[in-house]
């Protein structure tokens, strides 16, 4: 049994401007101790997927319209609020991009840590305080006795994120969801925090879902990757496999559009033309089709499901030998992935059908 199994998750937001199709049938599994990266741009549904797991979607707009989120054999979508509250923090913890908005500004770090620990464990205040001290030391905060009595604003961004990690790991959760944990931090501080996160997760055997737009961060941090676009998982593979043999045109485009520190000087960037789709329109066909150089006529009408690139393969959904799967009618060949364009003689991307233009 997997630690977490998400099946056909559909999330919509009902807003004044219409229904936003945020997550359109996402499925993936996660084993204990695994580190999974969810990569994609803003609006691709990577954060919403995880807020749905935590049942923390903004109310009243956010709705889980379908699917299952099975955690340790239990469908989280069927739990009532008090059962869910019991689980949050203890079994599944989350850290966010901006620690300032997730820490209470009018409580000291000690009050917040003791509160978290005592909400889930029957321990005395002094025991909880001792544990807090231990945690701050563990995440490398200097002078932890003094720092416990400080307020969040007295910490720098990197230190605040360390405090968040300390609180998140206080109860040794089975799963830690880290949503862009280092995006707000400088690169030298990012290196400190990622290093810490990786070390602690390995020590405690915590499974991690790392949500980020930064392919560099996931390359060093994760063992598996799901690439998301417009509410779909479009490609799923082990991290080395995905970087070495990307198949989905969007993944290929992402890898070519960011400058690499180790690129040859003068190597041109190949941008992905166009803009991400408007999620207020119900998806018809593949959402990447309008920007895709590989598109066929079928791409305008039908969204392909996530299928193994080797069709005879037995599908493995977790672990280092995970099956490389892609949701694409016309995936890039390895040569095309290197060239970042279709190389087939006479191939032109299929024109949009008349009604899609209108």
């Amino acid at each position, binding site marked *: 049994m997997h630690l977490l199994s998400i099946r056909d998750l559909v999330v919509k937001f009902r807003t004044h401007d219409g229904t936003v199709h945020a997550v359109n049938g996402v499925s993936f599994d996660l084993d204990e101790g695994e580190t999974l990266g969810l990569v994609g741009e803003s609006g691709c549904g990577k954060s919403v997927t995880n807020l749905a797991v935590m049942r923390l979607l903004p109310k009243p707009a956010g709705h889980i319209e379908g699917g299952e989120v099975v955690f340790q054999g239990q469908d989280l979508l069927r739990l009532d609020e008090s059962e869910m509250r019991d689980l949050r923090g203890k079994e599944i913890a989350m850290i966010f991009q901006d620690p300032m908005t997730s820490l209470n500004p009018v409580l000291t770090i000690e009050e917040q840590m003791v509160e978290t620990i005592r909400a889930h464990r029957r321990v005395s205040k002094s025991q909880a305080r001792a544990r807090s001290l231990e945690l701050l030391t563990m995440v490398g905060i200097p002078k932890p006795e003094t720092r416990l009595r400080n307020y969040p604003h007295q910490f720098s961004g990197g230190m605040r994120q360390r405090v968040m990690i300390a609180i998140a790991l206080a109860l040794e959760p089975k799963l830690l969801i880290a949503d862009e944990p280092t995006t707000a931090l400088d690169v030298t501080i990012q290196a400190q925090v990622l290093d810490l996160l990786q070390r602690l997760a390995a020590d405690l055997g915590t499974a991690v879902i790392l949500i980020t737009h930064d392919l560099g961060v996931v390359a*060093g941090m994760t063992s598996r990757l799901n690439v998301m676009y417009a509410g779909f998982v479009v490609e799923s593979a082990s991290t080395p496999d995905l970087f070495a043999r990307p198949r989905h045109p969007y993944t290929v485009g992402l890898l070519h559009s960011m*400058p690499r520190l180790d690129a040859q000087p003068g190597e041109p960037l190949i941008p992905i033309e166009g803009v991400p789709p408007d999620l207020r329109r119900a998806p018809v066909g593949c959402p990447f089709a309008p920007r895709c150089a590989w598109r066929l006529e079928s791409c305008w009408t039908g969204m392909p499901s996530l299928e193994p690139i080797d069709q005879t393969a037995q599908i493995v959904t977790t672990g280092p030998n995970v099956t490389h799967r892609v949701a694409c009618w016309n995936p890039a060949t390895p040569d095309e992935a290197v060239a970042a364009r279709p190389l087939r003689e006479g191939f032109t991307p299929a024109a949009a059908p008349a009604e899609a233009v209108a």
Partner: protein
Amino acid sequence: MSGVTGQPAPGAAVGVASTGTEPGRPLLEITDLRMYFPISSGILISRHVGDVRAVDGVTLAIQKGETVGLVGESGCGKSTVGRTILRLYRPTSGRIVIDGQDITWAEGSTLRAMRRRMQMIFQDPYASLNPRMTAAGIVSEPLEIHGVGSSSERRERVRDLLATVGLDPDYGDRYPHEFSGGQRQRIGVARALALHPDLIVADEPISALDVSIQAQIINLMERLQGEFGLTYLFIAHDLSVVRHISDRIAVMYLGRLVETATSRELYDRPIHPYTVALLSAVPIPDPAIERKRRRIILTGDVPSPSDPPPGCHFHTRCWLRARLGNPERCVVEAPALRELASGHAVACHFAEEVDGSPEQVLQVTGEGMGGSSSRRADDSPTGRVAAAGPGLAT
């Protein structure tokens, strides 16, 4: 103000030629620039109790047609340098010379005239465009302020500019909220181009954009530079982006430049311990490389610019100083930026001790300098070139 009516479309030589630059002279020269922001305290009687030394003695020259990247972490003063150059602030001391003309203390009409030649592209395309003005109005505003052309000529020029940056000229009557982030940044670029500037200061122009859109804007800026002979000061925190777009890079830490070099040299042979650590911290999107890389993990945070450490500002976090047995000189004497190789200047007393080689980084991380034990590319370009090149090994 004469000779500007009926300006040709961007790209035609006339507008640029009117501001001919003497060959060999840098377009922009800043010398020992300081920008302190006073901190005051007291309710009735405001006392000056200290300064935030955002820029603390920066010297930099930019040649015409060149792109200089200014990198550093948040709070290092890189944006303040850009804004002071455009004289959005009145500098505390130092000199700013554009094309031979000293504008350090320029005011009024002199300053306004100079500003035609220097424009800015801002980070946030949501905050830097007036939501109540149409795209055409935004792009046309600099032309109106400087009284360029008749209204019909301006209209024509705005359409040209929108087309130049890759927007449909017919979208001119739309408002900023009707555009995507990338399109908004294109409007910001068109506005910066409107007056045929020589120098464009781009302050984190792509960091607010989605990854797939960033490359579009970088490529646009590169194309425009080729077409119009623009000079860029490209300010950003992302070393990969800065390395891609810049001819030369200046690395800044706590208000001072610590290293300047061509972007190739800086990457192949970083010398300042801060640059070495910064480069080692940038993640590379390639798991095979990441697995083997070692990072120099700097301890602690950047000190406050209102109370910077004495001597070398970096000494509190410096891995090299720790290796050398914490020499006193770093604490008492601020290192000057000195040229170690042609075009490669470093502000470090012990620069000769650094070679940026993998062996050295391994030694550093292996000595428990708070380093990660897991990564370092033995085959990283840093390593390859440092090993093959002349090197400054001890």
